[in-house]
């Protein structure tokens, strides 16, 4: 007994240190992207960065918070709308793209009090109704001109190449900040609470976990993230039609990416975003068959491979690239 406990808690492993170093190097390489990539590749990679944000946010909500929302398009649309509104009010356009998600996050705080009292399926469709309602209300704004929509005119002041590079850099920075936020959240005390709540809310509460505050943290983070994805999408598309931005399809994409990559794993949704990006690049033009395929994959993965590709891989090989968890190391007895 005089010796230390036979078990030590390990947070960093050689694999995860190598993975973090690799990720850092990748980010540096990506940061210089617009200097060596052509316009097409820069645009496409901006889209991929947006997908990574969306997948990471939906995964934080469902995979870690246990909150399945079919209404994240509400924040996606609001993010784009807020950016247009702010730019119209005279805010510098790229600043507007950054401030808009934060405003949406502010709005999601009072909403969370209400939404988080809904459970399971009620939360899922309740959020969907909220998205429908925000869509209708945004349409009432004269600036939007109903379903005709409007566009982020201020962006046309930039030369196409400058705009493309700026979009890319903003997306890269926002993606890094948001994914890092999830990473540090999961490593923090709140991260343990979040997973305890997902696994058993009553038991977590009885251990002194502040259920509501913890859930709210993740709800607001996901709202900010989805709003950022909406604002960034606006920067690439420039035009804003409420129907497109408030479409439930965005949530369908998020669900597909998260389920295929690995619900409740940190790395999975990033992998899912890359897979979705590749599928979209090659099959996006084949009409709605590829959407049928997305729905079918979501259905099959949820039933037969609930931990997704990465989760299954990790289970089999015991590898965790990003050190978000705790590993127990048994010390061999002398």
């Amino acid at each position, binding site marked *: 007994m005089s010796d230390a406990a036979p078990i030590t808690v390990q947070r960093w492993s050689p694999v995860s240190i190598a993975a973090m170093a690799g990720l850092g190097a990748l980010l540096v390489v990506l940061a210089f992207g617009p200097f060596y990539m052509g316009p097409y590749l820069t645009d496409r990679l901006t889209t991929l960065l947006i997908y990574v944000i969306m997948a990471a946010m939906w995964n934080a909500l*469902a995979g870690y918070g*246990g909150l*399945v929302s*079919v209404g994240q398009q509400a924040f996606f649309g609001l993010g784009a709308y807020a950016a247009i509104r702010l730019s119209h009010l005279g805010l510098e356009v790229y600043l507007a793209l950054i401030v808009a998600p934060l405003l949406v996050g502010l709005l999601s705080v009072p909403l969370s009090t*209400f939404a988080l*009292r*809904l459970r*399971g*399926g*009620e939360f*899922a*469709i*309740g959020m*969907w*109704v*909220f998205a*429908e*309602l925000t869509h*209708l*209300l945004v*349409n*009432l704004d004269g600036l939007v001109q109903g379903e005709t929509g409007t566009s982020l005119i201020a962006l046309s002041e930039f030369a196409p190449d400058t705009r493309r590079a700026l979009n890319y850099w903003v997306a890269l920075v926002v993606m890094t900040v948001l994914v890092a936020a999830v990473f540090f959240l999961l490593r923090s005390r709140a991260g343990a609470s979040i997973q305890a709540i997902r696994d058993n809310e009553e038991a977590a509460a009885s251990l002194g976990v502040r259920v509501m505050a913890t859930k709210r943290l993740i709800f607001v983070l996901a709202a900010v993230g989805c709003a950022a994805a909406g604002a960034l999408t606006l920067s690439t598309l420039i035009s804003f039609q409420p129907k497109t931005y408030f479409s*439930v399809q965005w949530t*369908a994409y998020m*669900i597909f990416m998260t*389920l295929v990559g690995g619900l409740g794993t940190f790395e999975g949704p990033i992998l899912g975003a890359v897979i979705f990006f590749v599928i979209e690049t090659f099959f996006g033009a084949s*009409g*709605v*068959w590829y*959407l*049928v395929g*997305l*729905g*079918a*994959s*979501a*259905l*099959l*993965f*949820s*039933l037969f491979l*609930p931990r997704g590709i990465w989760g299954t891989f990790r289970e089999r090989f015991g590898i965790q690239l990003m050190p978000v968890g705790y590993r127990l190391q048994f010390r061999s007895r002398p």
Partner: protein
Amino acid sequence: MILLNQVVQGILLGGYYALIACGLSFMFGVMRIINLAHGSIAVLAAYLVWMVAEHWNLSPFLALVAVIPVMAAAGWLLQRTVLDRSLRSGALTPLLSTFGLAVMLDNSLFEKFGADTHSLAPDIGDLAFNSWNFGDVTIGQLALLTFGVAIALLGGLQIFLNRTPLGRAIRATADDPDTAELVGIDSRKVYAAAAAIAIATVAIAGTFLGMRATFDPYTGPAQLIFAFEAIVIGGAGSLWGTLIGGVVLGVAQNLGSQVSPRGFLIAGHAVFFIVLAGRFVLAGRDPRTLLRVLRKAPA
């Protein structure tokens, strides 16, 4: 008086909402599953009825008789292949799998039928637009029929659940599947039967959707939302509550449409959130206390 007519139209519309909510409510009551593909399945049924009616030149009502067993079988299959497995893998899985199914169904319908809107209204002749007039109040024959069918269906389900052996087995399984198994009930069979019944009612609802309006491959999600709103407003788990919820939703929408053309949907969603918020405020407080306070007030 225009307002009175709007209220009457809203009540009648509520009949349709109760009809579409019936299967969703039943499935939630028995299996605790919110089937996110509910609306898409209703639209699928509408297309099936339309196909049968067109192909054999039948009335949609006769076509429905042929489609109901098909949809019931589809419900049974849905339970056996998707829901049963989902139920065993945690609370979130049914949501994810049925959402995947909805995306799959909607887009498959688009591939098969294209973006054109369809309607069953041309196939039912005068019934689609005939109505009785009482002063300013108009009562459409189809709307009244829809309302009547909703009451008959809800009442029929209630009697079925209360009086028949299968109904009792369903209630027992809904309460506690494990205990039900102890007394010799095969919960998988009971769930499959319940799913078959739920999807059969969805076939009826889909047919009325097709007769009262137009539909296209992406009409499903909106029907799911209306059905869900009716259930929540009426109080989940009660079949008659669903009818009340549908009526409240329909009246709110019709009154909203008087304010602005966009008010129809906004008022519907708004009343849904108001009812939810009201329930949260009252939660934990005995409503009888409120009644007692009100009764004492005049004294």
